[in-house]
């Protein structure tokens, strides 16, 4: 069974060594996290379509150098919440402005349509860049990088434990589902199904807590004093500085474009 949290087709060797497929993946994780965050802030602030188009282009370029499976990643990104799609689809009808067409007596406006397109462009550019830059990391590396970016230790430990046990608990969930199936459970819209799903979640909680007690016991056995030393030492290399400078330059370029074209 493939892990839940993994966007790459296993760049891992059996020893768990961190071997990345692309040069982007070998850039210092801290630089990639900061780059993704800075990209998000700049793109959200932009309004001109030219700039947003360029931002989407940058995101696609990052995606192609990250060697993520392009089709699968784009499917994931496109599968936005139905709730967001619904809100975007409603925008042309709720923003007043010059009408394009009328649907069941409700006029759709160009202004609303453009606003919806603007949101869709921003959201997709940011999520694509985020996945290209950050999701290629091992989740554990993400934890280490956040730690050296001064994220509180407790939060980092929480993240690492969560990452560590998601797959374990998913297997547990699948075992329980299999057991339910073996007893003839077929989900439907009825009280019995909902009660069974509720019991399933409750059972997972109980088992998880019992598991965590065993984990804590085992960790105390090995000298756990409330701190886990994070051993991954990250080294800043010249290539990382080049990447950081290039990325910063690109962001400045987007900002300048926005300032010169956005006003028009």
């Amino acid at each position: 069974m493939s892990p839940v949290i993994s966007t790459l087709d296993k760049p891992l060797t059996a020893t768990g060594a961190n071997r990345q497929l692309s040069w982007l993946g070998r850039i210092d994780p801290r630089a990639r996290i900061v780059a993704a965050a800075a990209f998000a802030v700049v793109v959200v602030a932009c309004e001109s379509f030219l700039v947003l188009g360029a931002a989407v282009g940058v995101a696609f370029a990052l995606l192609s150098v990250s060697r993520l499976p392009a089709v699968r990643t784009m499917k994931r990104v496109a599968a936005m919440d139905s709730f967001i799609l619904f809100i975007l689809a409603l925008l042309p009808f709720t923003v007043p402005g010059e009408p394009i067409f009328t649907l069941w007596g409700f006029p759709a406006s160009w202004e609303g349509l453009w606003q919806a397109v603007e949101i869709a462009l921003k959201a997709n550019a940011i999520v694509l860049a985020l996945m290209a830059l950050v999701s290629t990391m091992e989740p554990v590396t993400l934890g280490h990088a956040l730690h050296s970016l001064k994220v509180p230790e407790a939060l980092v430990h929480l993240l690492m434990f969560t990452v560590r046990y998601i797959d374990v608990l998913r297997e547990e969930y699948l075992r329980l589902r299999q057991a339910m199936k073996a007893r003839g459970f077929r989900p439907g819209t009825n009280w019995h199904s909902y009660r069974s799903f509720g019991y399933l979640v409750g059972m997972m909680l109980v088992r998880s807590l019992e598991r965590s007690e065993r984990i804590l016991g085992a960790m105390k056995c090995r000298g756990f004093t409330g701190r886990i030393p994070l051993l991954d030492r990250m080294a800043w290399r010249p290539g990382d500085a080049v990447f950081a400078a290039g990325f910063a330059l690109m962001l400045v370029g987007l900002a300048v474009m926005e300032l010169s074209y956005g006003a028009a």
Partner: protein
Amino acid sequence: MHIVDGALSNPVVIGGAVLAIGGLAQGLRHLPMEKIPAAGVLSATFFVASLIHVPIGPSSVHLIMNGLAGLVLGWAAFPALFVGLLLQAVFFGFGGLTVLGVNTLVIGGPAVLVGLLLAPRVQAGSQRSAAIWATIGGGSAIALTTGFVAVALALTGDEFLPAAKLVFVAHIPVMVVEALLTGAAVYLAKQVKPELFDDLQGVPQ
């Protein structure tokens, strides 16, 4: 229910981020190192629960279960759900980066509210009354979540108001399903492991 980047106005995004950081700090204060393994495993449980699809009529919804998270984790539900949302944004592309604060507030805020108000009743009550309070908690957590989304959208601009109202109405079946599931989950947990609801409601250090 993940809001995406670019949909909300800057003041809403910044306000959400500030409040979320406050909530995280408060949540971490309730989470001594000793309890991090338990909180981490439960955070992973809620992550897995969010992958479960439950049928509603011809369609299906995925679970959120933030009410249950609040009942079990109390204040610690806020950082636990934040971690889940962060992982979903980075590895699944759900939601976004700048709206992470707002999304955490929308999911984690109701969890903490439900936890603070109803967890004592669930801890102290009999199996039946605990399940009834949990049903109320599970349903109202989703109602609050939808309400928070509506507020975030309404503060951004009037053009989102009709959509926000429709989203709330469309989520009424989800509220019912989450209420029933939370009630059933607590009914079972109270029978199998009643101390589940006491262990993690830590006091600040």
